[in-house]
């Protein structure tokens, strides 16, 4: 049997307390346990004044083509079909000559940022967006590149961004988890693991393709018992637990489970409310459009609005090895309107200032063709974008080479991206550490610089 927190684990007070609560940071938890008063967020690990409180990471799994969306490269057309020396980079699969994008780029907004016709709605929001055109990934294969994007390493061991955030900041809402993973299936994504961080930092998976909250979250609702019966049962259970505890010297561990049981019981209703999209107006729902991804965007807003720290929404449809022109059109059609609606909705509610929205895949795609009509993985240089939460809108940052294969100017590594995200949240990536296996680990390993030029 394992150690209990009243025999605190080796280390700090923080560790001693962490097991007690709802994924709540230790100070907030101490507050919960010992003063029992409601209060706002308490963020014990903040190193800087935070610019953002929440993150919504829109993860385009599979690797969307920056060349067809955000990084226009007219020169490809001039050299179409050719293979100049500079594009002979090794990627996952066999590639051929340069393949131009058939999509038109236009300038949008006051800033005039160029965006392709595949993103007409997101184009409307460019003045709030900073496009990073020089992101460099860590590996040409999906899983390691995805791990790189979320944990800064290629392996499956290290904690991911959301878990680090939960570790650093805790949650703002005691009735909801701090870290939520939204997908089309009920299992959590492989890119939301808590690794060696305590289990309270694991993501709560929500299957947004389901219609009702109780289908979205495992065990959220009781399938058998009437609500009244459940209430009686809960009261009885807590009486039983109180009595048990009273005979045992008010043990803090027993207390923690009683409190946590209360939160869990309430979560059935609060999470149900948070996940109930029918509570939104019809016109707002229409603005997001239809489909599970649109619902995911809307739900992401409802969750951050209620204090969830980090929401990761994943859509896995970007791996266009063949027939890219048709497939990417379909893929963008599903995400363009909802994402733009999310940005506008957040802005309209005054939430965009405190919510950092990040968009991107684990890599981009090659300017050279695969199978004649597809594009291979490209981790040498690709585009992502960020908006809100202290980001300077209406700009592009960095550049790839003439053909969009390799980042050449103002390179942003994934570690730089992580350092910047943490910075905006008030966290110093060099000081946000966790001791494991005899040493202190961080999200950025031994790398990472804050990209200051993109901060407002």
């Amino acid at each position, binding site marked *: 049997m394992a150690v*209990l927190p*009243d025999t605190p684990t080796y280390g700090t007070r923080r560790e001693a307390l962490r097991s007690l609560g709802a994924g709540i940071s230790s100070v907030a938890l101490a507050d919960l346990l010992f003063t029992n008063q409601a209060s706002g967020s308490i963020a014990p690990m903040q190193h800087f004044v935070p610019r953002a409180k929440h993150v919504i990471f829109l993860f385009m799994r599979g690797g969307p083509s920056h060349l067809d969306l955000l990084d226009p490269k007219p020169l490809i057309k001039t050299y179409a079909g050719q293979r100049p020396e500079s594009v002979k980079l090794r990627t996952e699969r066999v590639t051929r000559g340069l393949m131009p994008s058939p999509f038109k780029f236009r300038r949008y907004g006051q800033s005039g940022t160029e965006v392709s016709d595949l993103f007409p709605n997101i184009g409307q929001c460019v003045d709030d967006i900073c496009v990073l055109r020089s992101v460099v990934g860590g590996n040409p*294969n999906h899983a390691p590149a995805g791990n790189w994007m979320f944990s800064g390493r290629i392996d499956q061991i290290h904690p991911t961004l959301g878990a680090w955030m939960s570790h650093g900041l805790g949650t703002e809402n005691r009735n909801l988890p701090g870290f939520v993973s939204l997908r089309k299936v009920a299992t959590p994504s492989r890119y939301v693991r808590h690794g060696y961080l305590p289990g309270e930092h694991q993501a709560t998976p929500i299957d947004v393709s389901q219609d009702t909250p109780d289908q979205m979250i495992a065990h959220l609702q009781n399938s058998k018992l009437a609500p009244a019966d459940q209430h009686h049962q809960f009261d009885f259970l807590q009486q039983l637990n109180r009595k048990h*505890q009273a005979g045992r010297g008010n043990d803090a561990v027993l207390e923690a489970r009683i409190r946590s049981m209360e939160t869990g019981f309430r979560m059935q209703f609060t999470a149900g409310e948070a996940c109930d999209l029918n509570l939104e107006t019809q016109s707002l729902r229409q603005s997001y459009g239809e489909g599970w991804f649109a619902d995911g965007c809307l739900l992401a807003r409802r969750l951050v609005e209620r204090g969830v720290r980090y929401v990761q929404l994943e859509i896995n449809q970007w791996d266009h090895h063949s027939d890219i022109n048709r497939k990417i059109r379909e893929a963008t059609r599903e995400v363009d309107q909802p994402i733009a609606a999310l940005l506008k909705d957040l802005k309209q509610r005054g939430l965009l200032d405190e919510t950092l929205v990040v968009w991107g895949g684990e890599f981009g795609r090659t300017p050279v063709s695969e*199978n*004649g*009509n597809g594009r291979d993985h490209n981790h040498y240089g690709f585009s992502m974008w960020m908006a809100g939460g202290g980001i300077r809108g209406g700009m592009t940052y960095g550049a790839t080479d003439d053909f969009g294969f390799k980042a050449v100017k103002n390179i942003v590594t994934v570690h730089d991206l992580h350092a910047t995200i943490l910075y905006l949240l008030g966290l110093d990536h060099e000081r946000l550490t966790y001791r494991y296996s005899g040493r202190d680990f961080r999200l950025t390993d*031994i790398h990472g610089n804050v990209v*200051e030029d993109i901060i407002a």
Partner: protein
Amino acid sequence: MRFEWLTHLLSIQWRVSLPLFCLFGLSQAESGTTDEAGLDFYERRIRPVLVKHCYECHSANAKSIQAGLRLDSTSAIRVGGDSGPVIDPGRPNQSLLVDAVSYSGDVSDMPPSGKLPKRLVEDIRKWIAMGAPLPDDDSPHGPQPRKSVPIEQGRTFWSFQPLKVQKLPDVTMRNWPERPLDRFVLRKLEDHGFQPASSAKRRTYIRRVSFDLIGLPPTLEEINRFVSDRSENAFERLIDRLLASPHYGERWSRHWLDVARYAEDNPTSEDTCRPPLYPWPYRDWVIRSLNDDTSYDEFVRRQLAADLMSELAPAQVAATGFLGISPVYHKEPRLSAQVISVIAADEWDERLDTVTRGLLGLTVACARCHDHKFDPIRMEDYYALAGVMASTQLVEWPLVETSLAEATALTQTREAIVDYEQRVNYAEQMQTAAQIEQRPGEVYEMLVQKHQETLDALKQRALFTGPIANAVRDAGVWVDGRDPDWTVMEYRAGEPRDLPIFIRGNPNNHGKVVRRRFIEVLSNDPPRPFHQGSGRLELADAVFTDAQALAARVIVNRIWGWHCGQPLVRTPSNFGAQGDRPSHPKLLDNLARRFVAHDWSLKWLHREILLSATYRQGSRGHNETKGQTADPENRLLWKMNRLRLDPEVWRDAVLAVCGRLDPAMFGKSENLDEYDNRRRTIYGRVSRQTNSSVLQLFDFPDGKRHVDRRILTTTPVQQLYFLNSPFLLQHSALLSENCDHATSAAVQQLFLTILLRRPDGDELENVENLLDSASSRQTGLQLLAHSLLASNEFLFVD
């Protein structure tokens, strides 16, 4: 001021641009005078930048010092380099250092790899404007990579000492001790003015010890028999009965499987890392060996090297699943040999880490890129052991006598099939590409055909069909990069491989070759090179001869922790300088020494601990207030720790009280989320990807890497499981349906079945309220059963 520099460099993916040093955990300097504030600014904001961006070329340790400039000591910074002083205190605009980092002026732009972020340049300006405060201490300290810990000096560290004979200390409460270890505990309590807690009641003790040893609750009959047993050796007989139960191995195997990071698949499941086909024979082997009380040294020796021990029966090869079910990572053949070499090195690293932290409590893996910063462990030690892993192949192996050819064909064929499937697939891709681009594609067509024929032939091969386990055998492991388009692994049976030192951890940058051997600081004499095959058997022998004291301390500490909830050394896999020190060093030595003298018998060790007065204490202290104030962690052991059931024990307990537990032992694992799976949780499938919900929710380790101990969490999402999961709903319904007809008898029955006691008056009143308000009697009983199953009383052990 105090600095904590952790200068570890463990980069899983080695990259060319690695800075020389990495910094963690710069602690906040204590605040003080203005001078101190300036120095503080230097230490917190400037020195780390110099270390990270400049030391590679401008420090005593640089390969060659550039421009005669060192930035790693106060005097060197003040003196400057070939171009004279680089700082002019108070005048940033006159300082060459500022020109260099701003990429302006006549000096070279520094650092050459790219401009520093603006914030850092500003910091440097600000620091010079402050007068460039520097510490008096002129020695290059702080982030300087420390000199490696000298081996001779390192040998004096407490955990490397031989096990000394410890005299039993004198105590005042002479009647209290039951076993020798109690004298050590009591002496310490008395020295600190504590009294031990009173003994637990017999019914508390039997519940505690039943969960502890066999992972199941006692039956009412067992409780009554023990409570009324007035014989002198009632406790001994209870412990002996439990240790003789086959359930003992089922419970304790799980503790060991945590150490061995047992799981039945890999972190991902691409072609080259599909799940092992026969993982469970290893799990069954662990259960059997523990039930047989195989001595711990032999238990470990077989896990490392049963295949090399000719005296053993073929079935014992299952023991080597310890390494044979190690995590395997995908090795995409299209990637270069350089990239695949990193992946192979990562696999060896994980195995080495499990062996060294698991058996020796040493973080040897910290010496992958540089000598260990805190412990006397060299890179040579790391690569000497990594060579053992590079000489060991993961294989499927028959558990009965067969020919070598038949045995080796198993793995060879399976891997060849995977390889040719990939080759066919790749050739098809090439063919399609050619078609689309209207190029001649015959060459690919022929390739597809050729590979397909090979594949078909491979699939036709008749393979051994008897019992098989995932195991290991001796074979040197190489990355074969001869074909630039197709990188594969190559195994050479009978050809062990000594590895070169990978400079700064980079497997593509080789230093001198290191002979496979044991860790120097733990060796009595200069370590002898291994020469029997991979060296696994010699490694196992060295663990129990040269490193005997450390190995014994590590396992005794683990066993103590699994019994008492907290080990004596709170970092059970780190007995190095960065680890914890034992709360009771003499007790640990005394117990470890006698454990070795008793032939490393784990059952002997269980008896010593479980029959001690220390373990028999109640979980409420004699003076709880004093304890909570003076020793809230209960390091002094002034009471027994209250424990929460592990998820597997909790699930088994629910099945047991519902009368549904299937006692069948061993065999292939089954899905734990199926209601119809009534077997003990140890026979449930465990994954490195997605575990069953009960395991996943309740802090079950994920098996990707060795974890030193489980860390418990308490979250609302877990409570939703207790409130609403089908598992609880189904079992509470079952319990209530099987109840007596008369309501009052039914209530008594539910309390007795689940909580092993009768309800008291207050509780009966609450139950009555519950039954009255429930929508039906049957529902009311179900609510009652559900509440009892979800209660703290059921979940915790006093």
